[in-house]
């Protein structure tokens, strides 16, 4: 009996010690030694991260993970996905369970400052919106005075709603669900008049309904939600790798480098393309990566436009337009810094 207690105590101690040592090494070394990246994604959101019948993950957030894995290993499949829920996602990152969190997570001041994490560049500019049934005959969120609104407990959703209604002098009834399925059921059954979440997420909910045509996302965007991948704080090299992998996707779109033409582009005369693809200069080695990291990303994952169209675009169930997620020179917010 007593010996058993001692063994348990010893096991707990070694466990604690091993967590500490695991974090002492740099994330890149840990990932390389492990031979694969571990990426935190959502529990299943159409278009962002969803496993198919074969268990293969697909989606926009998943592709960000694959881009990072490709930058490190040259292989988009050297990544394991861990489904994180809205309450445990930051702990999973802090504790070292995952190397990068790519999970529709909004970059905010207090998260950056108080959670011990750093954010990469925004990969998707989102905003919180409201969706109602068309039959309700509502055209604006300001007409929802007295309505019941369903939402998930996550993040600042509830706070944004309260702020918006307070600012407009309106009242509403909030019904909060832990589980997305219950949340959607309550909305589709009419328990709630409206459902509120990030606009991209509303599109996911609508796409998953029986008759998507019956629902309309109201025009108001009541918050700014720049969704960005996150890494542990104080690992500058790893954050650089994540940031520049994301910027590589955007820069490739800007330069017209696509999955199909990337091999021809190796012969491009454009010096920036040459640097991005590792033809001249060895930008990759400065980050501790292979010099062909950029080529690999585009070859295996594609550029930003291809990623967007494949997972979220007009042709998909979500049917999202690019909106603010367009390159800066087309009036959007995507502005990759120069590769030089």
């Amino acid at each position, binding site marked *: 009996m*007593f010996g058993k*207690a*001692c063994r348990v*105590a010893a096991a*707990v*101690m070694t466990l*604690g010690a091993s967590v*500490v040592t695991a974090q002492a090494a740099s994330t890149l070394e840990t990932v390389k030694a492990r031979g694969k990246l571990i990426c935190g994604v959502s529990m299943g959101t159409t278009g962002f991260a969803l496993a198919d019948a074969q268990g293969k993950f697909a989606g926009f957030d998943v592709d960000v993970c694959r881009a990072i894995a490709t930058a490190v290993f040259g292989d988009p499949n050297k990544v394991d996905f861990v489904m994180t829920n*809205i*309450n445990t996602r*930051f*702990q999973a990152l*802090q504790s070292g369970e995952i190397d990068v969190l790519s999970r529709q997570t909004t970059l905010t001041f*207090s*998260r950056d*400052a*108080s*959670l*011990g994490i750093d954010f990469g560049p925004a990969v998707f500019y989102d905003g919180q919106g409201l969706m109602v049934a068309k039959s*309700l005959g509502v055209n604006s969120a300001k*007409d*929802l*005075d*007295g*309505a*019941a609104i*369903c939402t998930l*407990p*996550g*993040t*600042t959703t*509830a*706070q944004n*709603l*309260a*702020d918006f209604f*307070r600012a407009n002098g309106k009242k*509403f*009834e*909030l*019904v*909060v*669900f*832990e*589980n997305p399925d*219950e*949340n959607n*059921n*309550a909305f589709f*059954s*009419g*328990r709630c*008049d409206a459902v509120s979440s990030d606009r991209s997420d509303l599109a996911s909910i609508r796409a998953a309904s029986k008759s998507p045509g019956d629902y309309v996302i109201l025009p108001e965007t009541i918050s700014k939600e720049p969704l960005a991948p996150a890494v*542990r*704080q104080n690992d500058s090299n790893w954050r650089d790798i994540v940031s520049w992998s994301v910027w590589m996707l955007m820069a490739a779109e800007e330069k017209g480098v696509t999955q199909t033409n990337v091999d021809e582009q190796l012969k491009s005369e454009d010096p920036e393309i040459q640097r991005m693809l590792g033809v001249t200069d060895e930008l990759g080695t400065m980050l501790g990566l292979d010099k062909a990291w950029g080529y690999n990303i585009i070859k295996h994952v594609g550029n930003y436009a291809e990623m967007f169209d494949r997972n979220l675009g007009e042709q998909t169930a979500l049917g999202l337009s690019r909106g603010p997620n367009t390159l800066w020179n087309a009036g959007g917010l995507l502005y990759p810094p120069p590769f030089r």
Partner: protein
Amino acid sequence: MSPIVLLRDQRARELAYQLICVAVVVGCGWYLLSNALANLARQDIATGFNYLGREAGFIISETPIAYEPSDSYGRALLVGLLNTVKVAVLSIVLGTIIGTLVGIARMSSNPLLSRLMLLYVEALRNVPLLLYLFLWYSVIIFTLPSVKQAIALLPGVYVSNSGLVIPAVVWHSGFWSITLAVVLGTAAALGWQAVARRRRIATGSSQAGWPIAVVLFTLPIAVAALLFEINVDFDWPVLGKFRLTGGAHLKPEFVALLLGLTLGTSATVAEIVRSGILAIGRGQREAARALGLPDGLAMRLVILPQALRIIVPPLTNVYVTTFKNSSLAIAIGYPDLVMVSNTIMNQTGQAIEPIALFMLVYLFLSLATSMLMNWYNGHVALKGR
């Protein structure tokens, strides 16, 4: 004494084992805590309970006390705690009443009744509570009409998938005097009941005491109504653009949780009551019958009071479990302590403190329930004289 002698002394050895055990437990706890604190500090994660005073900024759908989004996180937690207590206490009371009736009916000589009760108990006890919560909630929101087509049971009483709405009583004046009168009347009636009972036991002659009790109960209320100005209005529910506004609301989330907890508790209580009654010797029932007591009276006067001694200790467990089970509320959107804590965790990014806080609260609730039940148990237990 030399260590060898100490080692041979059984009492010293036992004490040493205990001390080592305590040291290991405390050591482990201290190690884990200091490790957590060091890690949090190293990763620049905010710690402490300062967040409790900051503005909450979110809405809670059920608020037993006044609450606005501009109130503090601390007050939001209090609202969550009150919601937990409200639903748990109500289900404990209702579950005990239903459970006692079911437990007695389960032993009925009528095979239809006893089999039905068997089915009730087994069906409720052998499926996880969470699934029942989903079931009741889905039944409510998918079978009842939406609020625009709400069913009017009575004028002003509406049922829809947004819950039950009844007219609310608005007291302009006289609320406290009437409340006081009701309390006084109840106390007087109960006091009279006790006096009558003592006299019956002393003299053996019983006379109907209830007319006097009724008078004692109504008299203070009538006096209060005459002396003080009573001004009461009804707030009738009206169908607004989206919802029924005004009136008192019973939300479907609350109803589903209350239903799930009450039925679950009642099934366990039924089995405990049955085991308590079965444990009372057959001779007691036969003796009661020989004295000429009908079955109902025999149960009420002879069997149940004795069975209570066996029933109360396991009941404590059931009540504590009900409190803890109420945290499943989060699955169906009832804003209990855990749900409010979760929202706070999401907004502040601090996880350890809110969880520690609600663990403490549940510990306190469980211990308080145990204490209350132990006190009651001491009251009914067989006194060794």
